[in-house]
């Protein structure tokens, strides 16, 4: 393999790794949202990803989670050397970049300004919404195909083709809930099966959660485009001068 094709492959691998990072509030990968402004890979295997957000005042807690998750995903690349994630144009860029880079916790990076141990709880709040909304999307499709509420309540993950339950299983894995083939298809936040009698209400709550997430996503995507021009472009570069 030539140095150039290897560099291109590595950039692809970096983007794939970053696609595993979700905006916790929007339940979508940061790569799809246009939050990754550029990535670069050095000849020594060093990786840098630059992130940008829809506003200067986007919540620093969510920003932190994305920067930290991005760094963790990059560090998993077998060939990666030093991994740096830089958040640009944000009121707390400095604290977040230095904090995540120095492997501090959020509360250590903002001494006196943040309560310890609240980040996972916050992440879980929105993962649960994403999990609930995904159940409603699936439930709606199944009802349209003639399933009854009783059948939905009795169903387990293994009853459906895997491609239909990808999001559900991913969210459950992140929430520490069961995601095996015998796990119920429709569950509450603790992973308990939703009884048939409660299913209609369950799906309605998920519909509302989905509208909330979707509307917020539209708002954020629009703001990102307003701030940086049409979204969707990502400047991908390999540091060729170093790769040669």
């Amino acid at each position, binding site marked *: 393999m030539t140095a150039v094709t290897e560099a291109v492959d590595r950039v692809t691998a970096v983007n794939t790794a970053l696609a595993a990072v979700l905006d916790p509030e929007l339940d979508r990968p940061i790569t799809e949202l246009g939050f990754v402004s550029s990535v670069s890979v050095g000849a020594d295997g060093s990786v840098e990803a630059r992130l940008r957000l829809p506003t*200067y005042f986007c919540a620093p807690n969510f920003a932190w989670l994305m920067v930290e998750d991005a760094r963790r995903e990059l560090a998993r690349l077998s060939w990666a050397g030093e991994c740096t994630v830089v958040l640009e144009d944000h009121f707390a860029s400095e604290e977040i970049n230095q904090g995540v880079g120095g492997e501090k916790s959020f509360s250590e990076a903002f001494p006196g300004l943040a309560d310890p141990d609240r980040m996972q709880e916050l992440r879980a709040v929105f993962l649960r919404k994403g999990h609930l909304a995904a159940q409603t999307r699936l439930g709606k499709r199944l009802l349209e195909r003639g399933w009854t509420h009783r059948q939905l309540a009795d169903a387990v993950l293994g009853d459906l083709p895997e491609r239909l339950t990808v999001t559900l299983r991913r969210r459950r894995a992140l929430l520490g809930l069961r995601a095996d083939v015998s796990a119920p298809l429709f569950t509450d936040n603790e992973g308990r099966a939703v009884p048939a009698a409660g299913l209609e209400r369950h799906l309605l709550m998920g519909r509302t959660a989905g*509208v*909330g997430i979707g509307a917020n996503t539209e708002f954020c995507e629009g703001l990102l485009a307003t701030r940086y021009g049409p979204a969707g472009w990502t400047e991908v570069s390999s540091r060729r001068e170093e790769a040669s």
Partner: protein
Amino acid sequence: MYRKDGVDYFIVDGHIHFWDASEENTANKYGEGFIRCFYDYQRNLSPQEWVWPLEKFRKYSEQDLMHDLFETGYVDWGIFQPTYLNEFYRSGFNTTERNGQLARKFPDRLIANGSFDPREGEAGLERLRKLHAEWNLRGVKLYTAEWRGSSKGWKLSDPETQDYLALCQELGIRNIHVHKGPTIWPLNRDAFDVADIDHAASAFPGLNFVVEHSGLPRLDDFCWIATQEPNVYAGLSVVMPFIHSRPRYFGQIIGELLYWLDEDRIVFGSDYAIWSPKWLIEKFVDFQIPEDLQSEYGVLTTDAKRKILGLNHARLYDLKVPGSAQLPAAAAVAA
């Protein structure tokens, strides 16, 4: 008043500002970032002809406001919701005092709301009494996410807050507007969580709690609370401009609110000067839930639009509604 197809719409814009983010008043990079963030809100969700130059957006005049609301914007009453931001702007961003001076000049058009921060303790209670004595408050706007010393925010369910809400009840400050919207401040404490509304609304059934921005992105949590608490209202500021660029989402949000609450508890607000009421009102009166969503959400009736645009607020703020703008049943009773 707005008239379309022979129907009169009494208009109360329940969420307006008279801010000063001029360079002279901007104290630091946070103030600069804040007004630019607001400006991006305007640029993102407004029709092109409604986007202002940044200079005007930073500080617009009394004439701009009066023109945009009352001369061309159909508004009968405007309600100021203050945002102090004293740490970002030298003399504050959008204070009760700045708003109140204008409200005093146009007492049959403008209402100035106050604010409180329960972390001020006894002194804050006294300050609220004074603010009420000076401006005859009918409502307050609360920012539970504001920093103060080592505190990163507060909740309506905090013990200290109960004294403030009790004082509001005693003074007749009945309308408690709470900012629950897109997250900015504070850091990791989830201060825009809406659960505290539930607690306060149960404890103070005599007060009305208007949740501004309808709790987005926590729409589901908000709706769930609002179904159980009859004194909880959905404020449409920030939601309204979706009607232009994201009409389908607008239809879905309105549909959800109509489903979980009802048309008596949804209230209009433009968030002026981020957005201007004229185009929001025109588009809203012409709006209908997209056909393929009507089986789930039903339709938005003319009566519902009249309530949302003004009649609901008129009830909360005791505003006199001309007979032509009242609903048929109410008009018959009044006659």
